[in-house]
């Protein structure tokens, strides 16, 4: 198949890439550009591990052609932190024990980050519904839901805040 030259805007940086028209966004991110944070788990759009954002909307990058991402702002898990400084959502995932094996984590974060951009005040049901396209086999979701909820509503009652090891709630001080 004929190759195409494309410029993708990934995490606010333009990237030149030579693709074949049937390359998925996930293949281009992982294989061509070495953004291996996005994971392939099911390869058919069910598990959400490959979730990235296109102009703020969560999409399955395994079902999205790289061509479709042209002209969009592509945000991957590598674009969440500001250098070494984790985003409040990432920080909350760490502090609430929302990460176990970590394979679903990048996709989970991208879905949750998109939710919080749209709705800064989601209740638990909204969070659970929003995350229901992301399959996690380790956690039973409880700590993930907690981590998202605490990013939206920092809470002094949270045992992670009370433990004193790390402050998980930024507004506490």
């Amino acid at each position, binding site marked *: 198949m004929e190759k195409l030259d494309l410029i993708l805007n990934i995490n606010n940086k333009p990237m030149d890439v030579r693709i074949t028209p049937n390359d998925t966004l996930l293949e281009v991110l*992982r294989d061509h550009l*070495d*953004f*291996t*944070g*996005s*994971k*392939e*788990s*099911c*390869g*058919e759009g*069910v*598990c959400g*591990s490959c979730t990235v954002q296109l102009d703020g909307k969560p999409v399955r990058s395994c079902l999205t052609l790289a061509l479709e991402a042209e002209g969009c702002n592509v945000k*991957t*898990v*590598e674009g*969440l*932190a500001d250098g070494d400084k*984790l985003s409040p959502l*990432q920080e909350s*995932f*760490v*502090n*609430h*024990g*929302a*990460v*176990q*094996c*970590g*394979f*679903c*984590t*990048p996709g989970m*974060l991208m879905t949750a980050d998109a939710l919080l951009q749209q709705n800064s005040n989601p209740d638990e049901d909204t*969070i*659970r*519904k929003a*995350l*229901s396209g*992301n*399959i*996690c*086999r*380790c*956690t*039973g*979701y*409880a*700590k*993930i*839901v907690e981590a998202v909820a605490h990013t939206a509503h920092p809470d002094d009652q949270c*045992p*992670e805040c009370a*433990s004193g*090891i*790390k402050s998980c709630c930024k507004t506490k001080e």
Partner: protein
Amino acid sequence: MTDYNIIGTRMPRVDSRAKVMGKAKFTADLKLPHMLVGKIKRSPYAHARIISIDASKALALPGVRSVVTGKDTEGVKWGVFAYTRDQQFLQTDKARYIGDEVAAVAAVDEETAAKALDLIDVTYEELPAVYDPMAAMASETELIHAEFPNNINIHVNIDTGNVDENFAKAHYIREDTFTAPEESYFQAEPYAVVARFDSDDCLEVWCPNGGPHMKSKPLSNSFKIPLHKVKIRRIAIGGAFGGRSEICPADYICALLAKKTGCPVKIQFTREENTIGTRQGHSMITTHKTGVDKEGRVLARETTCYMDGGAYSSTGPIATSVPFLSMEQAYRMGSVRYNGYRVYTNKPIRGMIRTHGRGFAAGLDTQLDMIAEHLGIDPVEMRLRNSRQPGEYTSTKSLVSSCAMDETIHKAVEKSGWKEKWGKLPPFHGIGIGTNSVQTGFPMGIRGGSQSFIKFNEDGEATVMSGVVDNGQGNENMLVQIAAEELGLLPEDIHLVNADTETTSSDPGSYSQVSTFVGGQAVKNAAANCKEKLFEVASKILKVPADALAAKNRMIFVKDAPEKCVPLKKVVRVALTNFISVNAEGGYWPKVDMKREWVSNPYGQMCEAFSFGTTIIEVKVDPQTGQVTVLNCVACQDVGKALNPLVLEGQFEGSVAMGGQGGMLTEYHEWKEGRCLNPTMLDYKLPLACDMPPIHNIIVESIEPKGPYGAKEAAMSIAMSAAQAYAGAVSNAIGVYMDSFPLTPDKILAAIKKIK
């Protein structure tokens, strides 16, 4: 109460930062120069003789670097035990299930590799196949393995004696049969392996594993190279749940392709391959016959279980025993006879899984509920009358030291409001209880123990080397916490080198729930030995005896006068300048009965500790749709000591999801003539965030005398007891004791219809 600095805290895991940043590398993320893509050609037949394999067309395809078949393997066979060595990594004579490995290619890219697979011409002669254990045992057609009559792969027989006599004395006897089909792991990470031979002809491998040393030995045997030349590397692992402990044929095939081509090779499984070509859970048909006295105490039990083992042995002897062991640990029985049969069928290979024996265990608890109803006893009371007590021996002669089974029952009952709910809930609303016990270790032969090395760096920080692997459960963090606690350092001062067969000593792996108990204890002992050396040096600096010293927060100080102190870093530097080594090693070897063997001698001390768990579930069933809504879950386990409650709670919650919500409501495989009809996430129903009930975790600490800080197995008892509690709750809601699991809406509706 012992005053720990780091143990027992809700410390966030050390590995999570890299994971939330997308920086943690999993096997499929690896790229090596000149790396080729490997792919495996699998049998399309459930049982077929391989007549010929012609790879000439595939080899002629541009971009194909190598094709390997069984002929290249020199007939190497794999089996966990000497008596179960029945699996070739590439079949030479026949294929035994749809998915069996028959050939493999290495090519420059995935597309070429896939095309090449199609060009490999395999001629088969189809043979009659069998798809369920009962048919397989009765079959008069060609055996799946010629040396196993009636297709019986493993028979475990346990008999404590007096079973028939005690049945004769029983006040009430019940016999019931329970079934459950196969389930799968669905680890988030599909299986992947990267292999290469380096410039010193050493084989270097990256792959998900339940213990790197369990992978290196079969590779060393197969390639006939010394163990030190097989380097299994540490890599992030996306879940295991018991499914990644053994060597996978792909490991060998990948290494073989790397050897043939002289290039690194990566094999990445599709989701379907991960389901079909790794391991699955066993389907089981279990009959429990139980005789009790008037008070409901079990006098005699006879259990017979037929397990569909699939095409090869895998961990067969262990898999055939563990459901029984969990039962005999959890419940006292006056006498018991067990016959477990693992039977070969022409289906994918079955191994150990987190809720291994869900039908076995849920059946047992369902039967206890039936007996309780007959005797007019509350199910909770029924369990308390039969629950394991500390200081007792199990039926197969293992001493149970720490045991807070009753406390887990009492605490779960209280938290769930059982007393206000049992028998008082509205129609189609139910509550159920499950109790279980899981081993902290098995006799593992030469790999039963773990050793650790710790070296100090001149900045006062430490490098800890341990063979323990992290499959996602938090083992790496556990090692860091233990090392930091013992050495008096902070977690960020510990650099962990683990799960690498080149630099770390033998270790049992995360297999058998033993990582903390054995591997963690080895690190603890190594750190204690380091500390002894550090204190010798510090005692000269502080001019006090070494035994007067303690270490905490990077300082070594006099216990009775903490203001007299010296930074640990300074002690290290003084030691270095005086040519005194403060590095040390330490190990742990559990005292189990080495003569205990799964089949030939299933008696004696199994492991040093057992955990005990109780789960209580409350559900509502929609009588129109058969849909179950789980309203509440209380998960309570005696874990010995919670080294990190934050991590532990996550394990409890994950166990409820896999053991209960998935394991008892939605997860099972469907088949058509040996072909799995739902191998992908689209068709196999895994629990989602919106499905999960609120989970209340209760941690009970019995302080196991032999465990590190008192710790033992954590959360597997929840996975098992959750399955039992879900079953009990649904049965209670609909007023029918269910005997076929999982409890899908069709089965529930049929049961409701039957009583109407």
